[in-house]
């Protein structure tokens, strides 16, 4: 399943890169890309983790920058 989320307060380019790497570590994520310029997160994930994928991605981003929000 592929979904696009809007993000807020993605303030630095290399944080975006780090967030992407962090999200990719989540189990069940097939592909992830954090777009710094458009502040969009594109996630492709296994249907089995659909319920908590957003929470996990949020946590991963907050780990890098606690100001960053993902709007679900």
């Amino acid at each position, binding site marked *: 399943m592929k979904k696009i989320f809007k993000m807020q307060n993605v303030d630095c*380019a290399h944080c975006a890169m780090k967030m992407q790497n962090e999200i990719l570590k989540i189990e069940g994520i097939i592909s992830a890309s954090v777009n*710094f310029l458009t*502040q969009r997160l594109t996630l492709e994930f296994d249907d089995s983790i659909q319920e908590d994928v957003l929470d996990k991605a949020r946590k991963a981003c907050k780990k890098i920058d606690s100001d960053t929000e993902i709007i679900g």
Partner: protein
Amino acid sequence: MFGLTKKQKRTAISIIISLFLFALSLIIFRFFYDISGDNRLIAKLIPIIVWFGLYIFVGYELIIKGFKNIYNKQLLGEDFLMLVASLGAFGLGIYNLFTSNITEGFEEAVAVVLFYKVGQLFESVATEKSRQSIKELLDICPDTANLINNGESSEVFCEEIKVGDTIAIYPGEKIPLDCTIINGESSIDNKALTGESLPIEVKENSILLSGGINLTGELICKVNKTFSESTATQILELVQNATEKKTKTENFVSKFAKYYTPIVIALALLTAFIPPILFGGLSTWLYRSLSFLVVSCPCALVISVPMTYFVALGKASQKKVLIKGSCYLETLAKAKTFVFDKTGTLTKGEFAIKEILPNSKKDEILRLAYIAEQNSSHPIAKCITDAYKGEQISGYTHTNFAGFGVKAVSDKDEILCGNYALLQANGITPTENKEGAIYLAKNGYYVGLITIEDSIKTEVNGVIGALNKENCKTIMLTGDTFETAKNVSERVGVNDFKANLLPQDKLFEVEKLLAQKQPNDTLCFVGDGINDAPVLTRSDLGVAMGALGSDAAIESADVVLLRDDLQDLLYARNISKRAVKIVKQNVIFSILIKCLILILSFFGITNVWVSIFGDVGVAVLAILNALRV
């Protein structure tokens, strides 16, 4: 105020207050607070408390983030490094206060966090600015459409609409999906897509592309393409993914950043402990190692490189030049070989009358040609009937000789209109002979001929001239005969041309050119996207122009010129060159400054203040430079 977001405003205000308090404390403790000779504890506690209060006030966000970095094991995170540097400076301040009654360290601690904040604000404002530049483009696509079901309209998410569904588009709404009008008339503003400001009139059976705005009338349409395949969505996707393809420079920078920070931290640790063991003077060396920590983040580099490319991509998209990735900026900047497809790129792909011979019988010839060609829909026939301005003539019966021409017969006249062979076959020998001309005869006698040309776009000469001037190779590919190709290439001004090419031959020619070019040179192919998708893909850089509505072109090209104007190629090239130049400046400038500061602060020639400039100042300068694109 200055278009800042709420968070930015808050930061700006807190920075202004902090700066004021910082200056105040600086003045008080430097000039009016003398603790030499005062050995009471309270005299020492006052500066500690005041500076620490200020430190917390200015830097509480950073401090919290820094500690979070520890918790999340992000020990190379810049927040954490700044926290260590500032706390170290503060600790040094306390140490100095008790050992030698000077307060060196407190000021630096506050300055580190304060200017770090200034740098972050700058970065965030600049980012916002470059985001704004593409926002207009991101806004071309609505989220919902009015689906018509059993005569009733309901608002539905575009993703849910299928091909063949019927939708209504009301005046003032954006066209959500590519569709065909089945009922209604209106005018469409396609400015967001093509940059063309004149509205287009549409009626039944007109094809609409998503992203345009319906201006006047209500339209009922049948959907041709799903949302994800519709024009606007494709363009959006293209822009959104543009920054994901990393350039060589960006890869270099991230590699550099990966090693730079740990090395500088290691140097800082070594500086803090090895020399004091050898020579003593712990506080001096600690101070120097703090200078190291402050410049340990390669922020200026990491920020300014992608930022420069963002700004360039954003600016280009405002001009309706879509560049699919930052890496193509670097490719385009290097391109020295430009290969052009002829029809649709250099020429309009529309035919026009070049000359009518003999000129004295011009009106008569045109009239005869009109009579013969009036029922044909062939582009050449159309250009003749369009050129004829006289009254309508009827009463002729037409016979078509495929590949030769037309015979039009009435009770009085017999008109022949076609190539040389047609006239010869009817026993007439034209007195003139021109390559590719259309010959006319009336009642068995030769009358004259018309030559047709594909008219060259007005801007082409200027563009090719500009490229030639910069020693670029310009080559034209065409399926025309050698003679026609030679003629066109002379008028256009290209260095070289290849004629008689079938579409698959074009690919072969490009392969050959690719093999010939210098290793540092890149080959840029410019086509209109019709039939040249393989060539667009194979070239180092494929540019499709006026490609709106052609999925294959948008998909296989690296740069899409939405407006049908070749000048945009030069624009794209210039902005690429500028971006690459600025990136180079930023990379060299910031690496040099940082290395210089590392060396100078090791020998104690510069202090923490210079390091703060090396961190924040360089970042701000690099960002300002990036915005210049």
